[in-house]
C-alpha cells in the first residue's frame, strides 16, 4: 500500500497542469539518479541481494554442515570465510543469515510502515474516539521500552517459526511514523480537494486511499526504506543476545555473535566477515533512504527533515 500506483501518482500534484503519465515518478527517479550516494546504495543493495540468494550456489557447504577435519580453519578456497571451532562453514552461515535478515527487514518495514500509515491517517481523519484511542496507544508504546519488551516476550517465539519475529518487531516500531503521519493528515484533511471529495459523498476510506495516502506517500516511502535498516538491526540485536533466531536457524545476528567470541583471538576474521556484510546492508539502505528523501522532497535538508 505504500507504493503509489500510476493513478495515485497523478493525484499527488492536484494543482499541477496535467503532467504526463507517471510524470512525478520519472522526476523523482531523475533526481534520485543524480545523487551519487543513493545510486551507490541502490546498486550495492541489489548486489547484496544477489549475493544472499545466489551465494549458496558458490559453495557446496550448507549452514548446518560440520566439517570435522577443518575446524577453525582460516579463509581458504573451500571455506571462503573460514570455519568456527565446531566446523561450521562461516560463508554458508553468513549467506543464509543474510537471507533471513533481508527478508525480515523487508517484511517488518512493510508491516510497520503500513500500519503506521493506516493508524495515523485514521486517527487524524476520523477524529473523536478513534483519535483518542490511537494517540493514547501510540504514547503507551513509546513509553514501553521496545527492546526490553521484545526480550521479555522472546520465550513465546522460542519454538515457533522464525517468521514470528516479523510481527513482533513490527509491533514495537510503528509509533513515530504514525505520529508524523497523523500530523500531516491533520493539515491535508482541511485542504480543499479533500473537502470537495467529502461533500461529494466519497466514502471515508476511499478519500484516505485516493487523496490522503498519495499526499503523504513521500514520508511513507522514505520511512519504509529506513525501517528496513532499523528492523535488520533490531533482529540482529535480539539474535546477538540469543533472544531472536535460534539454532538450527541462523541470522546475521547469530553469526556475528558466534564471530564476536573470536574478535579478541587470532580468528578475528570470523567476526569481521559477517559484521561487514551487516554494515554494508545498513549503509546501502541508509544511502537509498536519504537519496529518496532528497528526491521526493527537494526542500528537505537532511537531518532536520526527520
Amino acid at each position, binding site marked *: 500500500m505504500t507504493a503509489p500506483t500510476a493513478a495515485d501518482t497523478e493525484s499527488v500534484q492536484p494543482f499541477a497542469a496535467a503532467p504526463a503519465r507517471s510524470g512525478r515518478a520519472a522526476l523523482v527517479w531523475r533526481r534520485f539518479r543524480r545523487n551519487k550516494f543513493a545510486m551507490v546504495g541502490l546498486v550495492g543493495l541489489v548486489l547484496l541481494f544477489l549475493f544472499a540468494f545466489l551465494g549458496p550456489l558458490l559453495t557446496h557447504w550448507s549452514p548446518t554442515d560440520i566439517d570435522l577435519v577443518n575446524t577453525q580453519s582460516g579463509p581458504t578456497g573451500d571455506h571462503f570465510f573460514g570455519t568456527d571451532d565446531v566446523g561450521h562453514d562461516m560463508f554458508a552461515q553468513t549467506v543464509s543469515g543474510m537471507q533471513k535478515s533481508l527478508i525480515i527487514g523487508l517484511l517488518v518495514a512493510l508491516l510497520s510502515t503500513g500500519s503506521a500509515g493506516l493508524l495515523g491517517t485514521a486517527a487524524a481523519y476520523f477524529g473523536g474516539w478513534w483519535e483518542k484511542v490511537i494517540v493514547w496507544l501510540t*504514547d*503507551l508504546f*513509546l*513509553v*514501553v*521500552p521496545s*527492546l*526490553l*519488551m521484545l*526480550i*521479555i*516476550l*522472546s*520465550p*513465546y517465539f522460542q519454538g515457533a517459526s522464525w517468521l514470528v519475529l516479523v510481527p513482533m518487531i513490527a509491533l514495537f516500531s510503528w509509533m513515530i511514523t504514525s505520529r508524523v503521519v497523523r500530523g500531516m493528515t491533520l493539515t491535508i484533511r482541511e485542504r480543499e480537494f479533500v473537502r470537495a471529495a467529502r461533500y461529494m459523498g466519497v466514502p471515508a476510506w476511499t478519500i484516505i486511499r485516493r487523496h490522503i495516502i498519495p499526499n503523504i506517500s513521500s514520508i511513507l516511502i522514505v520511512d519504509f526504506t529506513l525501517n528496513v*535498516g532499523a528492523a535488520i*538491526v533490531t533482529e*540482529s*540485536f535480539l539474535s*546477538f*543476545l*540469543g*533472544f531472536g533466531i535460534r539454532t538450527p536457524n541462523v541470522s546475521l*545476528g547469530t553469526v*556475528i*555473535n558466534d*564471530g*564476536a567470541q573470536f*574478535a*579478541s*583471538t587470532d580468528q*578475528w576474521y570470523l*567476526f*569481521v566477515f559477517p*559484521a561487514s556484510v*551487516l*554494515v*554494508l546492508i*545498513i*549503509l546501502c539502505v*541508509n*544511502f537509498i533512504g536519504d537519496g529518496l528523501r532528497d528526491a521526493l522532497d527537494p526542500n528537505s*535538508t*537532511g*537531518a*532536520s527533515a526527520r
Partner: protein
Amino acid sequence: MGAFIVRRLLNYVVLVFVATSLAYLGAATAFHPKDMYLQKNPPTPAVVMYHELNERNDNPDKPVLERYAHWVDGVAHGDFGQTWQLDSVSKHFSISVWVTVRLVTVAAVISAVAGILIGSFQAVRQYKFSDHAITFGSYIIFAMPVFVLAPLLKLVAVQVNKAVGGNTPLLQYQGEIDPDATGFWGQLFSRADHLLLPTISLSLGLIAFYSRYQRGQMLDVLGSDFLRTARAKGLSKSRAILKHGVRTAVIPVMTLVTYSTILTFAGAIITERVFGWNGLGSWFTDATNHSDVNSVAVITLFSAVLVLIAGMLSDVITALLDPRVRL
C-alpha cells in the same frame, strides 16, 4: 496552565503503570520459571522448587492475575520482591544502577559536547572537505550497530596490546577495574583504562547522531538576519556564531540530547555484555535467561520512568535555553 501540567503528569503516571503492568504480565506468562530447577543435574526436589517459586511469587501454577495482584501490592509498599537468586530486588537494583551510571555518565557528557561542537563546526564549514569527511564518517557509524562496534573495538585493542607488548596489556576490555590495582592513582588509572573502550562504543553513535542534527539546525540559523545584525553591530565572527548561532541552534538539539542520554542508562545492554560490566543491562538479560519476573519488571519500570523524566526534563531545558518560552 497548572491544570494542564497536572493532567499531563497524571496521564504520564497512568502510562508508566500500564507499561510496567504489560511488562510484568508479558514476562509472567512468557517465562518458564520451572525450567531452571528441572534442568539442574540432579533436578531440584519439587518441594524445594515450589517453596522457592512461591517465595519469588513466580509459581506458574498460580493464576497470573493473582501473582500480579501480589506484586502490585508489594510495589505499593516499596517491596519489589526477590531475584532468581533469592536476593532482594531493591538491593540488587541499587548496586547495578551505579555500575550503569559509572559506565554511561562520561560517555553521555562527551557525546553531547562533542556532537554539538562537531555539528556546528561542520555547518560553519559547509561543503568543505572536513564537512564531507565527517558526514561520510557518520554514515559509516550509523551503519555500525553497537554489537558490531563493541567487538570491533575489542579486536583493535587486542592488536594494539600485541603491538605495544609488555607484561600488562595497555588497553583493558573486561570489567570495571583491575582487582590488583593499588593506591588512589593506580585505581583511578585502572578505572579510566577500563572505561575507555566502552565509552567509545557508547558515544560514537551518539556523536554522529547529535552532530548531524546540530549541523542541520545550525545551517538554518547561519543564514538568519539576527546573526547578520550581531555581526553588523561589531561582534567578531566567532563570538557571533558562539553566542547567537550555537545557542539558538542548540535548543531543538537539546531535546534529542536529553532523550538519548537518559535512554542510554537503560540501553547499554550490549556494551555491558561485551565489556563485562554488571549493570542493569546485564542484569536484564540474566534475569530473562533465568525466568526472573521481578527483576525484569523493575528494570522495565525504571526505563519507563526514565522516558517520562526525559520528556519533562527536555521541556524544562528548552524553557531554560529559549528566552521566548516561559514556564
